[in-house]
């Protein structure tokens, strides 16, 4: 139990949202990774823990300043070193799965002796789980920095999704936080193997990465440059996650939620890129002269204020792409408006907009219903908010 506490706690900062994979279910096995309804477990901090998130070992040879398992921090905080046996891990995963606590496994690890040696241990654990105990549920495996191509391929055969933590946006920022890893040879080189694997049909749920926010003096602009690059077809990352670097001391455990606003704004920009299909150039306009996204204003509102030529928009004849640019309207409400347009229904009242899920507070200044604009467009032409 102590082992689970140590290795669970060491993995809690890793993020993974998906629990579904397009892979076909193997009859006679246990577990399913098909897309279903809701996740099975949530924490009081609102994070989903439908995957058993653990490290296979917390022993690590690297000295990353933000990581609790690094050589520096382990000495300082006197953490003990431990590791799971493949059988133990399989027992835990299947035990929790049968109790309906989890939907799969998220397996990460510290770099014990070397990346390849540790990758071999991860592979063995997954092999036991998949082949000996026929576990067919979702498995997300973390790719260790500096891992060889063959080792990565072997893990990719067994995992639904893999992820490699880029952590910081470029070489100089990376070296501010870690002296034992090299950004290009340990991270980027490994990342380059992933698109090739995906094309071969391995890692069916794709691959993701994660940034640690505030670990170095990196700006949002630097992060966004890297993020937009990774979303291009050359890299084709499925998702990118952002995790605020939290102080490791016990005494700093409680502080204002506003601390996480930077992370929240980065997620908003990420969604505007992936789902709302804004171009990187447009999104970069949101960033201020110092290289940061203004914290006080929603980036979509800032972008709408910049595009004065298309607003206010007549909701009864707007296209999908135009609707998606209105703050307070997302994919679902845009589709509903389109459905109404096709049925010949004219939207005439604010209440109607509310009933189809539009957030009136944000949307009204940018909409025209019939010939009327719904709110006065105070400061509409100004570029408020540090943009």
């Amino acid at each position, binding site marked *: 139990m102590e082992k689970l506490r140590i290795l669970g706690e060491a993995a809690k900062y890793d993020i993974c949202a998906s629990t579904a994979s397009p892979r076909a279910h193997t009859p006679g096995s246990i577990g399913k990774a098909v897309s279903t309804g809701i996740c099975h477990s949530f*924490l009081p901090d609102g994070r989903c823990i439908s995957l058993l998130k653990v490290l296979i070992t917390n022993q690590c040879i690297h000295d990353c300043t933000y990581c609790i398992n690094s050589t520096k921090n382990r000495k300082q905080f006197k953490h003990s070193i431990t590791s799971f046996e493949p059988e133990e891990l399989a*027992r835990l995963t299947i035990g929790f799965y049968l109790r309906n606590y989890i939907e799969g496994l998220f397996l990460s690890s510290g770099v014990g002796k070397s990346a390849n040696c540790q990758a071999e241990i991860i592979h063995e654990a997954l092999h036991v789980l998949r082949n000996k105990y026929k576990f067919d549920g979702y498995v997300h495996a973390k790719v260790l920095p500096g891992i060889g191509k063959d080792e990565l391929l072997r893990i990719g055969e067994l995992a639904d999704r893999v992820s490699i933590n880029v952590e910081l946006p470029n070489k100089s920022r990376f070296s501010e936080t870690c002296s034992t890893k090299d950004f290009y040879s340990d991270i980027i080189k490994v990342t380059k193997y992933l698109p090739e694997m995906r094309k071969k049909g391995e890692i069916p749920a794709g691959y993701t990465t994660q940034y640690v926010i505030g670990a170095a003096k990196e700006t949002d602009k630097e992060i966004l440059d890297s993020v937009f690059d990774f979303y291009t077809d050359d890299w084709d990352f499925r998702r990118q996650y952002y995790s605020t670097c939290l102080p490791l001391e016990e005494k700093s455990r409680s502080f204002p939620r506003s601390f996480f606003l930077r992370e929240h704004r980065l997620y908003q920009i990420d969604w505007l890129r992936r789902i709302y299909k804004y171009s990187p150039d447009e999104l970069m306009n949101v960033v201020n002269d110092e290289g940061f996204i203004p914290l006080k204003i929603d980036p979509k509102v800032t972008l709408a204020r910049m595009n004065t030529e298309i607003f206010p928009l007549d909701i009864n004849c707007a296209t999908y792409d135009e609707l998606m640019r209105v703050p307070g309207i997302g994919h679902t409400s845009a589709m509903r408006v389109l459905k109404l347009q096709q049925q010949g229904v004219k939207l005439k009242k604010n209440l109607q907009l509310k009933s189809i899920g539009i957030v009136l507070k944000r949307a009204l200044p940018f909409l025209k219903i019939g010939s009327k604009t719904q709110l006065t467009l105070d400061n509409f032409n100004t570029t408020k908010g540090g943009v």
Partner: protein
Amino acid sequence: MFRNLFGCSLSAEEYFNAASYHKESTNDLIIKAKFLLETKPFEITTGCSDLGKLVKKRGNAVLREVHLLSAYMRLKPYSEMVLVGECNNEHDTCYLIAKSLARRFDRFVIIVFASKSFSVVTNRTDLPEFPKFRGSSKQTIIEKVRCFAKQTIKDGFPKEFFNEDGDSLWEKYYETQFLEQRLNVKLFRKFIPKYALEKANMKIEKEFYEKVVEQRKEKHTLDFFFD
């Protein structure tokens, strides 16, 4: 009226079937609803008449219960390939919940004890038809099903997979994953509504949530000051 234009992803028959499991659905209403289904099914999907609206509303309530309870209900595994769950459902959804779980755990026999009834379901096709499991207590019924499973199911897992301390391991693990700095009661409530927390017997999560919220009341942060 507008909401009804969109919220019709299910067919009228699906709404009708679900509504028939609602605790307030009488035989009389089911007969009337069936007639409506055969003559004017669109009234159910759009909810444009009183009866149609009622059928749809009740159908949604039942489906919501099945959806939540089958996701959040915790199970107890037995080495005879039997999984046992317990919930305090409002509607007559015991069988539907068990069926939903059987789809997920297709190699197992599922027993769901609900507030008024219990169901034994499996998706396995290699088993003979279940006998009628009767007993004065839950334990007796579980024993009977285990005995039946032991005689008929040949495959299985090593006994270590069904150790007794699985729940305490989860309790420990659940606590380690919590980030105090990120406490977000609103979000937790959104994902696990109070309804599910109470009805699905999520003891560990409920106790931990209450403990954390209690602690938060004791030490307020200066959030309001920075906003």
